[in-house]
C-alpha cells in the first residue's frame, strides 16, 4: 500500500494533541498573527481626529452650506478655512494648515435639484497616506449620510470626486495589508512546521520514527496536514481583520482568495519542512524561519519598498520569494477585483515552488541519522 | 541569628507540597560536619525536591532547615556561597578548554586571577591531567569530566557539597577513583551530601537515609541498617524498604 492511511490518521491525531497541549504553539499560531496585524496596522493607520479642512464653495447654496455644517459638526474636524481659489489649497497643504479640501462646483444645488446628481470634489494631501484615506472616507460618508437625509422623495445623487495629490497611486496602505497577510502566514506556517520536526529530533523521538514503517512522505504529510487546517483558519482571521479592522475592500471573490491563501499556506508549510530537514534544533529552526524569512519578505516583496524600485539583482531575488507572488494575488482579488485569468501566472509560480520545496524536502529527509 | 557551625545540615519537619501532592513529608535529620551522608530513595521519592530546598532553589511549604548554619528561608544567597553542587547532568562547557572552565567557575565565585591560576594548577596536577590544560573539555573521557566537574564544584572551598548521582554511567575503576576524591574531601572537613542508584556506593557513606514516598523511613550507618534488616548488603535493605513504592506512578 503506497498510501499509509491508517498511519497517517494516527500521526495527524498525535500532532493535534501536541498542538492543543502546548500553549506556546497556540499562541504563535493565533496570538501572533492577530497581534502583528493590529500592531503593523495601527502603526500606520490611526483614527484621525481634529483635522483641518479647507472649503471652496463656488455655489454657496442651501446644500453646500448644510454639507459644510455637517462636516464642521463632526468630531473629525476641528477647524474650517474658506478659500476662493484653487491654488490656496496647495498652499494650505504645504504649510500644514489643512489636510483635506472640499470643493463645491458652481450651481451645485441647481444641478442636484434638476439633474438629480451633482459632483463634489474632495482633494486630500496623500503625502500622509493614512490620514488622507481616513479623512476622505470620513468626508464621503458624511456626504453620503446627508444624501440619505435629503433623499426623502426623489433620489438625488451627489458624486464625490476624490483626488489624492502628492501620492496619487496610494502606495503603502493597499500594499501594506496584503503584505502583512503574506508575512504573517509565511512566518507562522513555516516556523511552526520547522520547529515541530526539529523538536522530534531534539527529543529523540525522530530516532524511533525512523525505524518505524512510516514512509518519509507519510511523516511529512502528517506534519503538514494539521498545520494546514490551522493556517487556513488563520488566513480567514487575517483576511477578516484586513477587511473589518482596516477597511480593505473585497472587490473580488472571497472564496478564490481563500483558495489562494490555502495554496500559499501549503507553500509556506513545505518551506518549513524543508528548513527542518536541515535544522537539528528547535532554536536553529526558529532562527532560520524567523530571521531568514522575515527580512526578505518585508524588504523585497513590495511590502515596504516597491519591487520596481529595487536594484535589478534584488528584483530576481524578489521573484524567488513566495510572498511576492501572493501579495500580487491578494491585490488582484481584493483591490482590483480581478478574476483568475489575471493571476494564473503567480498561482502557477506558487504551485511550482511548493512542488520544488516538497521534492527537495523528500530528497533531504534522511531515513538514517 | 547566630550561625551554628557544629552541624552542616539541620532539617526539622521540612515539607513541600505541590497542590495535593506531598513531595517531601516532614523530613527531619542532621548531617555532621565532614560526614559523607548518603541520601537514597526510589525515583520520585522526593530526593530532588529536598535537595532543591536545601540548596535554596525552592521554598518549603513549612518546616525548618539550616545549611552551613544559614537559614534556608532567609539566607539563600549565603547558602549558595557556601555550598557546591554537582550532578551527572552538570556539564562543563565542552567548547572551552579545561583551564577556561576553571577560570570561569573561579570567576563566578569571585576568585582573583592569581588564585584561579593556583587552583587550576592544583586541580589539574591532582587529577594528573596538567598537560591537558589547554585542550577542549570535549576531548576528555567521561570519567575525567566527572572528576574535573567535582573538583570545580569545590573551587570556592564550600562547607558542603551536594552530589546528585555523580557516578552515573562511568566505568567501575573511575567510579572508585571518584569515591576516593570524595573521601579525600571529607577528610579535609568538607561535608558530602550524595545521592546514588549504585547500592554498593551506599556502603561507602558514613550514614545513609532512605526516602520512601516523601518520608525518611530509615537513617543510620550502613552496618546498623544491614543488621536491623538482617541482610548482607545495602541493596537488600533498599529492596525491603523501597519495594512496593515503585509501582506508584
Amino acid at each position, binding site marked *: 500500500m503506497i498510501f499509509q492511511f491508517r498511519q497517517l490518521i494516527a500521526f495527524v491525531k498525535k500532532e493535534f*494533541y501536541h498542538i492543543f497541549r502546548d500553549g506556546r504553539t497556540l499562541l504563535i499560531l493565533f496570538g501572533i498573527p492577530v497581534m502583528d496585524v493590529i500592531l503593523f496596522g495601527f502603526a500606520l493607520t490611526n483614527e484621525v481626529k481634529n483635522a483641518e479642512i479647507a472649503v471652496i464653495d463656488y455655489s454657496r447654496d442651501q446644500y453646500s452650506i448644510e454639507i459644510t455644517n455637517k462636516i464642521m459638526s463632526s468630531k473629525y474636524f476641528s477647524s474650517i478655512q474658506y478659500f476662493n481659489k484653487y491654488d490656496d489649497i496647495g498652499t494650505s497643504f504645504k504649510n500644514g494648515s489643512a489636510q483635506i479640501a472640499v470643493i463645491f462646483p458652481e450651481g451645485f444645488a441647481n444641478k442636484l435639484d434638476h439633474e438629480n446628481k451633482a459632483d463634489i470634489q474632495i482633494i486630500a494631501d496623500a503625502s500622509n497616506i493614512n490620514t488622507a484615506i481616513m479623512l476622505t472616507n470620513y468626508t464621503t460618508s458624511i456626504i453620503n449620510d446627508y444624501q440619505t437625509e435629503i433623499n426623502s422623495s426623489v433620489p438625488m445623487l451627489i458624486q464625490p470626486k476624490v483626488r489624492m495629490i502628492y501620492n496619487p497611486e496610494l502606495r503603502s496602505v493597499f500594499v501594506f495589508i496584503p503584505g502583512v497577510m503574506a508575512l504573517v502566514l509565511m512566518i507562522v506556517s513555516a516556523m511552526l512546521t520547522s520547529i515541530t520536526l526539529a523538536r522530534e529530533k531534539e*527529543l529523540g523521538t525522530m530516532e524511533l520514527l525512523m525505524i518505524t514503517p*512510516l514512509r518519509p512522505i507519510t511523516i511529512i504529510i502528517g506534519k503538514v496536514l494539521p498545520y494546514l487546517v490551522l493556517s487556513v483558519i488563520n488566513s480567514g482571521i487575517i483576511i477578516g481583520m484586513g477587511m473589518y479592522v482596516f477597511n480593505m475592500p473585497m472587490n473580488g471573490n472571497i472564496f478564490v482568495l481563500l483558495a489562494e491563501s490555502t495554496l500559499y499556506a501549503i507553500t509556506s508549510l513545505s518551506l518549513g519542512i524543508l528548513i527542518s530537514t536541515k535544522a537539528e534544533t528547535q532554536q536553529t529552526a526558529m532562527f532560520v524561519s524567523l530571521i531568514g524569512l522575515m527580512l526578505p519578505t518585508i524588504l523585497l516583496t513590495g511590502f515596504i519598498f516597491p519591487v520596481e524600485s529595487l536594484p535589478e539583482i534584488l528584483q530576481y531575488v524578489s521573484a524567488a520569494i513566495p510572498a511576492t507572488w501572493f501579495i500580487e494575488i491578494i491585490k488582484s482579488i481584493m483591490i482590483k477585483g480581478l478574476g483568475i485569468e489575471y493571476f494564473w501566472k503567480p498561482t502557477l509560480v506558487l504551485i511550482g515552488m511548493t512542488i520544488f520545496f516538497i521534492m527537495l524536502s523528500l530528497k533531504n529527509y534522511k531515513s538514517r541519522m | 541569628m547566630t550561625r551554628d557551625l557544629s552541624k552542616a545540615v539541620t532539617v526539622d519537619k521540612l515539607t513541600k507540597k505541590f497542590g495535593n501532592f506531598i513531595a517531601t513529608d516532614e523530613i527531619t535529620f542532621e548531617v555532621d560536619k565532614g560526614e559523607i551522608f548518603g541520601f537514597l530513595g526510589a*525515583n520520585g521519592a522526593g530526593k530532588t525536591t529536598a535537595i532543591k530546598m536545601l540548596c535554596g532553589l525552592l521554598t518549603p511549604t513549612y518546616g525548618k532547615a539550616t545549611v552551613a548554619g544559614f537559614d534556608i528561608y532567609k539566607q539563600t544567597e549565603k547558602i549558595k556561597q557556601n555550598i557546591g553542587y554537582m550532578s551527572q547532568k552538570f556539564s562543563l562547557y565542552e567548547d572551552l578548554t579545561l583551564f577556561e572552565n576553571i577560570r570561569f567557575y573561579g570567576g563566578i565565585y569571585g576568585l582573583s586571577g592569581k588564585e584561579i591560576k593556583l587552583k587550576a594548577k592544583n586541580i589539574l596536577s591532582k587529577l594528573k591531567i596538567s598537560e591537558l590544560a589547554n585542550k577542549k573539555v570535549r576531548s576528555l573521557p567521561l570519567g575525567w569530566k566527572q572528576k574535573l566537574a567535582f573538583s570545580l564544584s569545590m573551587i570556592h572551598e564550600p562547607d558542603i557539597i551536594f552530589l546528585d548521582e555523580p557516578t552515573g554511567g562511568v*566505568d567501575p*575503576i573511575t567510579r572508585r577513583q571518584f569515591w576516593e576524591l570524595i573521601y579525600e574531601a571529607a577528610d579535609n572537613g568538607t561535608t558530602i551530601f550524595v545521592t546514588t542508584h549504585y547500592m554498593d556506593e551506599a556502603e561507602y557513606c558514613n550514614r545513609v537515609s532512605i526516602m520512601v514516598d516523601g518520608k525518611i523511613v530509615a537513617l543510620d550507618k550502613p552496618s546498623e541498617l544491614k543488621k536491623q534488616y538482617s541482610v548482607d548488603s545495602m541493596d537488600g535493605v533498599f529492596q525491603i524498604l523501597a519495594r512496593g513504592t515503585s509501582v506508584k506512578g
Partner: protein
Amino acid sequence: MKAIEIKNISKSYGDITAIDDLSFEVNKGEIFGLIGPDGSGKTSIFRMLTTVTLPDKGEAFVQGLNVRTDFKKIRKLIGYMPGRFSLYQDLTVEENLEFYSSVFNTSIADNYELIKDIYSQLEPFKDRRAGKLSGGMKQKLALSCALIHRPEVLFLDEPTTGVDAVSRKEFWEMLDRLRKTGITILVSTPYMDEAAKCDRIALIKDGKILNIDTPDKISSSFQRTLYAVRSADTHQLILDLRSWDKTHSSFAFGDNIHLSLNTDDLKENDILEYIEKKQHSDINVAKIEPSIEDAFIELLKQDENHD
C-alpha cells in the same frame, strides 16, 4: 542463522572512533548484554543495528538481513528502546501506546497478551502524561511501546540508567519473562550486577570488546586469588593496601575491599598481619569468588597498561 551478526564493524564521528573493528554474534532467543561505561560505543552499536546509522566499515546482519541494504525489512522486525526516554512527553500513556501500535499497523488489543505483564502496572495511570511518570514507569512504557508490534529482536539501550534499584530489579524480572517467549534481546547497561542476569555478555571499552562469554566464565577469567578485606576505616585501609608492595589491585566493593596480590606465596594470615601492623581495628579477611565487576576491573586495568 544468528539473530545478530557483526563482522569487523567500525564507526567514527569526526576524529572520535566510536566502534573499532568490532565483531560478535547473538544467538536466537538469548539475552545478550553489552557492558561498558558511557562513551564506550554501546549506543553506536545500537544505532547501527537498528539501521539508524550506517557503519563506516564491516558488515552487520539482523535476523540474516543486511543493515545496509535490507534496512526496511529489519525495521519491521525489531523493537528499539533508545538510551534517552524517547516517547512523547505531552501524550498520555495510552496515547503513546496507541500511536506506536497504529504506526506499526497493529493495535493494543492484538498484542495485549505480550505486553500485559508490563502494561498492567501502567494501566492505572493510562491517562497520565508520559512526562509526568516516574523513571521506573517511563521505562515500562517505553518497553511496552517497543514491544507493541511483536518484534523478533529487541534492542534496549541502557534501559535502567538513572532508575532506582527496585525498579531495575523489576525491569529485569520482566526481561526474564520475555525471554521465555523466544524473543532475542540485546541490552546494554553500566550496572555490573545486571550483567550477571544475561545469558552472555560482552565487556566493552573505547569501542573494543575486552571479553565475550557467559557471566560465569567471565567471572572465572579472573585468575588471581581474591580476598575481601575489611576494617573500621575503609578509606585508610585502601590507602594502606595500595602502598603495599605485594598488592596487585585493591578496589572498594561496598564496605569491603577486594584485594588481589602479585604473588601466590602469601595467605590470609599474611594479609591480616600486614593490616594489623597498620593499626586497623575490626579486621576481617576472607577468600572470595570473583564477580563480573572484579573481572571487568582487571580487564580495564590491563587495557590501560597497554595504552
